[in-house]
């Protein structure tokens, strides 16, 4: 049986990832569409576009790290 504290911690960990994922998604939406526009004109820029596209992934990584820390503190893992 999971206690209330653990349940809240698990929800908190989920929210941390959710926030990061939404932030990353919103940022990638703009970069992705601009990148596609650039690639239509300059296909040789694929490398640079790909790189810019993954930059906002840091946000979801932070969410992931916070989630791990919450779960560690709550003894869930």
């Amino acid at each position, binding site marked *: 049986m999971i206690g209330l504290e653990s349940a809240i911690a698990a929800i908190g960990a989920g929210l941390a990832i959710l926030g990061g994922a939404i932030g990353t998604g919103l940022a990638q939406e703009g970069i992705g569409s601009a990148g596609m526009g650039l690639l239509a004109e300059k296909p040789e820029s694929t*490398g640079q576009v*790909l*790189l810019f596209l*993954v*930059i906002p*992934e*840091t946000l979801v*990584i*932070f969410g*992931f*790290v916070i989630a*791990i820390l919450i779960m*560690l503190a709550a003894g869930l*893992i």
Partner: protein
Amino acid sequence: MMLMFETEPMQKLRIIFLAEDKPRVIKALHKFGYLDFRKSKLSLVDDSPLAYATQLYELLVRVEGALAILPKPKKIEGRFEHLPAEKLVKVLGKEKVVQEIYDIANRVSMLEESKQELEEALYIASGFSCTSINLSRLRSTKASIACYAGEAKNLEPLLASLHGTRGIALQECSNGKEVFFAIASDKSEEAEKALSSLYSAIRQGAAKELNLDNKYLQEDMQARQLARKLKQALEENEEERSMLKAKLEKIAKGHYAKLAAYAEMLHIELDRANASSNFKKTEKTSIIEGWVPKKKLDKLEEMLKKETKGKIAMEPIASDELAPTLLNRPKLLKPFDFAMVFFSPPRSDEIDPTWVFIFAFLIFYGFMVSDVGYGILSLILATWVTKVTNPEGMTYNAAKVWQLGTIPAILFGILTNQYFGLQLDQYFLPFRGIDWVKNVTSFMLASILLGIAELIIGLSFGFVNKYRHGEKLKAYSKLTSIGAIVLGALFTYGAFFGGFEKGINMLTGISTLVLFVATIVLGGSEGSEAMSLLTHTLSYTRLMGFGLTSVMIAYLIDLAFTPTLAHGILVFVLLVIAFLVLHTLNMIVSIFEGIVQGVRLNIVEFFTKFYTGGGIVFKPFAYKRMLTKEEKVVK
């Protein structure tokens, strides 16, 4: 040690020699391959390309045109002795095979044109073969006669209504699907009225008018006979084209390599002929300027003296101009040089981070993929890609980097006991490795430590770059950044993980704060870098994040889809398919993220601490022989 992080030292040179020695000097420099020309700023007359350059261009266009006509053999092999320009012009002037190729190509192109016209004529003649029409006479009659073809089911009722109408002559022939008809009218009111519905349908696209001007329709015979004749002509046309194609294949087999070698020789000779447009000249001398790697200076001098019998002067020039960057790693690591040039080559006056990039990328990639099965499979795939792609291209170089990355992926896989998500100790090996799930904290700490190590290296490079360029305060801000990272890490360890006593934590905490403020103050316009110290350090936790994600997905695939015969053969087959497809997808995502994130950590987190980039790539006056070899020197 520091030399590892320096680009090749360069020297700008001025070389002066007698004009009569020019062809020999150019040839020697071309062969030497270590001089990157720069236009001299001396106020002398510009030299011009050698006289025979135009002739060589004409020959090159002719030979390359012939090569483009020939079918390219799968393998082009052979080593042909290089012919100097004069001899090359003579030999190619006598070479009959080039003219033969052009003659065949012209004949093929003529036959292809005829084929199209023959097919059109055959279509029309076959369409009218059930009538007694002589198509050649239709154009010569005074009446207005036109021929059409269209869909039978739409046109047949309209044509049926015209039969027996006064002033209209109609001949039609239908094969069920398509109807061909020739129609003539005397332009009377009655005839025009009767034809109005048909013409309206034709205008709407129900039928197309047939071209009676086709030269193959002008034979004085009935359509049926003509169709037979055209069919035969078409067969003969096809036969002749096949024969010519076979002839071209035969020529390609015997001469392609030789012609490709001529093209290579012409390119080399043209490079040499055009080289002198980079020179300056006086009445009796020629002057070249350019960059040479310092370690090649002695060899260059020795070689030029030998060529000119000592009648040469070489002087180093002091220059403010940025020296070109030569990245010259061993063959195995060349793809990383390619990647650096693709991103932005280092300037010759800054630290070259390629060696750190190589090791860091390989470790990061291995960390994120960390699976023996995925490593071996991707090694096979990467090797295959390198076999089928062009060694000069982006795909080949990316595959080479990927191929090297599979080694750490396999090593990390062994260390963490991951084999397509399975752990071998469950079956037959006693070695348990470092379990990803049970050691999440350790992996997170390891990724942060790797990040700290790379950031410290980056900041140290930044210190050297800034110090060399006289920006001492900014250089010191790099040192305070290093201090802030190290002490910040110690403070985090002490305060959050109980690593040290309170007093020490207080000391490290306050010191971190002071160094952080110092970084902002000393950094000036670049002081905002201080803000990124924490985020960039944490960014490296993605190593653990992507590694764990890949392992967990593989684990879940094994849990849910490991094939078993317990539920019958059909379920077993479905499980095998799902198991393979899902592992393949997980492997693709894992590899893609491993490469992209591995590169990103280096470019975004590491390079931003010191790297300017935008260097000028060293482009020596050189050539690469594929099918030719140096000519024998006659003494």
